[in-house]
């Protein structure tokens, strides 16, 4: 019996947390209540329209729907969810500052909104606001210390900001749970190389290319570290592999050709 009561209570809680597909028929003649019901119905319908627009990449239409929901000022979690979805539309319209504002507002309304934190860091990195990115990333890691995305994103922010200690810690912790993720080995190698720990960097870059042989940037990085360590033949081989890969981006390929030839001509 107690289990049944708990189950029933969970059910009503769950219903309160979702946006229903159909709104109930009004059973009131009170004008304020009728108005509230109409607003609730409009919020639900605009969510449907906005999400459908985002699905077909019609960001302008999506933004219009979510902007209207925000004007209607629904309670939580509809309000922060609408801001989160609006931010996705803005980001795709290259309105990065507007996207960041909506995500900041979503997090202010729901301080535990992890997806909003994850997206805000990505938006901040794109618009070059490393200070805000770091503040959000610290909050993200504090809220979800085991989150792969939290550790990876803060590691990236730290690396771009020159905070190699945090970058090493975060990528190191990330790799404990995800030892086969080549990008994290590459980023950890960069952090180590920036502190002149070339032996560790070589190991990380080598793991990255072992895990992802077509990962040209990691192989190039491996070449630079090998060169620094005086391992010229190995360095040249690494640059030659990058230079010979037509799938590599042209700028990196040119650089690899120059490095390979510089070693050869000695």
């Amino acid at each position, binding site marked *: 019996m107690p289990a049944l009561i708990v189950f029933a209570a969970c059910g009503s*809680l*769950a219903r309160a*947390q*979702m*946006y229903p597909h159909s709104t109930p028929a009004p059973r009131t003649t009170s004008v304020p209540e009728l108005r509230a019901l109409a607003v609730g119905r409009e919020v*639900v319908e605009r*969510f449907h329209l906005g*999400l459908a627009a*985002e*699905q077909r990449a019609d960001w302008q239409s999506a933004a219009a729907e979510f902007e209207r929901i925000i004007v209607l000022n629904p309670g939580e*979690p*509809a309000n922060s*969810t609408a801001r*989160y*979805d609006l931010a*996705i539309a803005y980001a795709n319209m290259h309105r990065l500052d507007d996207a960041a504002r909506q995500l900041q507002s979503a997090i202010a309304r729901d301080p535990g909104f*992890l*997806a909003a934190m*994850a*997206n805000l*860091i*990505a938006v901040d*990195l794109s618009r070059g606001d490393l200070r805000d990115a770091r503040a959000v990333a610290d909050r*993200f890691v504090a809220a*979800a210390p*085991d*989150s*792969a*995305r939290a550790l*990876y*994103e803060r590691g*990236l922010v730290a*690396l771009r900001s020159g905070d190699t200690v945090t970058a090493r810690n975060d990528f190191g912790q*990330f790799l404990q*749970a*995800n030892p086969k*993720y*080549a*990008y*994290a080995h*590459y*980023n950890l190698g*960069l952090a180590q*190389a920036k502190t002149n720990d070339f032996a560790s960097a070589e190991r990380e870059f080598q793991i990255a290319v072992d*895990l*992802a042989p077509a*990962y040209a*940037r990691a192989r190039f*990085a491996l070449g*630079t*570290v090998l*060169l*620094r360590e005086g391992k010229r033949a190995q360095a040249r081989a690494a640059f030659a592999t990058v230079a010979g890969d037509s799938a590599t981006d042209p*700028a990196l390929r040119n*650089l690899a050709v*120059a*490095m390979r030839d*510089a*070693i050869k*001509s000695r």
Partner: protein
Amino acid sequence: MLAAVLAVCSLAFERGYAGAASLEAMLDGALQPSAAPALLGPITEVGRVGWACKPEQAAGANSWQNAELPRP
């Protein structure tokens, strides 16, 4: 960029070694951290609190695959 690296290389190879400086220049110029991951997707009208919300689950996931980080 290329010219700068070539100049640094020629210095490094012809005169002893200013290896650390040349490597630093290369790392700064050519070796950038990975790109930021793509945005997590929209959250549907079903809501997210206590529900099977994919973006929220991805944000808290422990593995890179579930976290929707880019596939190398």
